[in-house]
C-alpha cells in the first residue's frame, strides 16, 4: 500500500512543472480550501538518511521558487490523501496565518555558542539584566511573592539570549519575526531563527558580521538562507 510523503504546504497550487521527489516520484497536490499540500506517493516511508534529508530540502527549495508562501513539512509520511485532507481542513486557519507570516520571506539562523568551549561553566546573566526583577531583594519578599518572582525571572531567562540584545537593533530593519530555541548542550547556548525578506540574506550576514564587536561572551555562526522551517508550526 502506497503512502504520501509530505514536502510542504503552499498557499496556491503552483502551475510550473515541479519535477520529482525524493524517490524520483512525481509530485502531486492534495488541496483543502485555500491550502495545498505538496506530496509524493511512495511504497514505504523513506529512511532518514543524510541523503534523504538533503533531498527533502532540495525539493522544498525548488517548491519555494514557485511559491511565494511555503511551509516546509517536517520529514514524515502520512497515511493517505483523505486523512491528509481532513487534517488540512481542520488546521486551515492556523496554516493560513502561518502562510501569511512567511509569504515572501526566508529564514536565517544564528547559532550562539559559549566563547570558552564545552568546559566553560554555563553563563548566568546577572539579575540586573532583567528590569523589574530586583534579584538582590528577593529574600525580602514573602514565600508566595518570591516564588512568583523567581518563576517570572526563570521564564524571562528562558526567552532571552541577553548577549544578543546589543545586536538586535542593528538587525531590526531586516528581521520580521524571531524564534529562539535554548539548547542544553554547552557550548551551544541557543539557536535563534530570524525571518527576513527573500533575497536579503547577504545584507543580514553583513549586518551580523559588521556588528560582531557588540556581542560579548559568545560566538555566533550564521546559517542560511533556508525555507522558513522554524516558522511553520501551526
Amino acid at each position, binding site marked *: 500500500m502506497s*503512502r504520501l*510523503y*509530505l514536502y*510542504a*504546504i503552499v498557499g496556491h497550487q503552483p502551475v510550473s512543472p515541479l519535477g520529482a521527489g525524493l524517490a524520483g516520484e512525481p509530485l502531486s497536490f492534495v488541496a483543502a480550501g485555500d491550502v495545498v499540500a505538496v506530496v509524493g506517493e511512495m511504497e*514505504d*516511508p*523513506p*529512511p*532518514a*538518511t*543524510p541523503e534523504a*534529508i*538533503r533531498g*527533502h*530540502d532540495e525539493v522544498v527549495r525548488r517548491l519555494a521558487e514557485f511559491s511565494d508562501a511555503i*511551509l*516546509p*513539512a*517536517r*520529514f*514524515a*509520511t*502520512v*497515511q*493517505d490523501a483523505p*486523512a*491528509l485532507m*481532513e*487534517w488540512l481542513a481542520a488546521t486551515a486557519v492556523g*496554516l493560513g496565518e*502561518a502562510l501569511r507570516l512567511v509569504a515572501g520571506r526566508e*529564514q536565517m*539562523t544564528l*547559532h550562539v*555558542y559559549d566563547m570558552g*568551549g*564545552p568546559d566553560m561553566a554555563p553563563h548566568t546573566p546577572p539579575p540586573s539584566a532583567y528590569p523589574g526583577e530586583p534579584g538582590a531583594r528577593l529574600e525580602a519578599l514573602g514565600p508566595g511573592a518570591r516564588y512568583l518572582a523567581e518563576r517570572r525571572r526563570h521564564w524571562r531567562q528562558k526567552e532571552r539570549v541577553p548577549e544578543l540584545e546589543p545586536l538586535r537593533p542593528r538587525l531590526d530593519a531586516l528581521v520580521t519575526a524571531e524564534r529562539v530555541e535554548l*539548547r*542544553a*548542550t*554547552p*557550548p*551551544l547556548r541557543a*539557536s535563534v*531563527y530570524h525571518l527576513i525578506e527573500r533575497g536579503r540574506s547577504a545584507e543580514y550576514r553583513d549586518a551580523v558580521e559588521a556588528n560582531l564587536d557588540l556581542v560579548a561572551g559568545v*560566538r555566533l*555562526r550564521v*546559517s542560511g538562507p*533556508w*525555507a522558513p*522551517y*522554524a516558522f*511553520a*508550526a*501551526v
Partner: protein
Amino acid sequence: MSAKPLDTRALLDEADASLLDLVDNVLTKGVVIDGEIILGLAGVDLIYLRLGVILCAADRILKRLE
C-alpha cells in the same frame, strides 16, 4: 512499516555544518502533522536528543578550521 533509524554517528563523522543545519530544520522544525495519520517518524526521536551534541561538534570543527 517504519523508517530505519538515522545513524547519528555517521552524521557526526560527516561533520558538515550545512548538514547539521539541515537536520535541525528538516527533522525538528517544519509543519508537523499530529494525530494517527502520521507514519514514518520511527527512529527519528533519538536524533532530536542528539541534535545539540551534533551542532556542538560542528562548532568544534569550525573552530579548528579558523
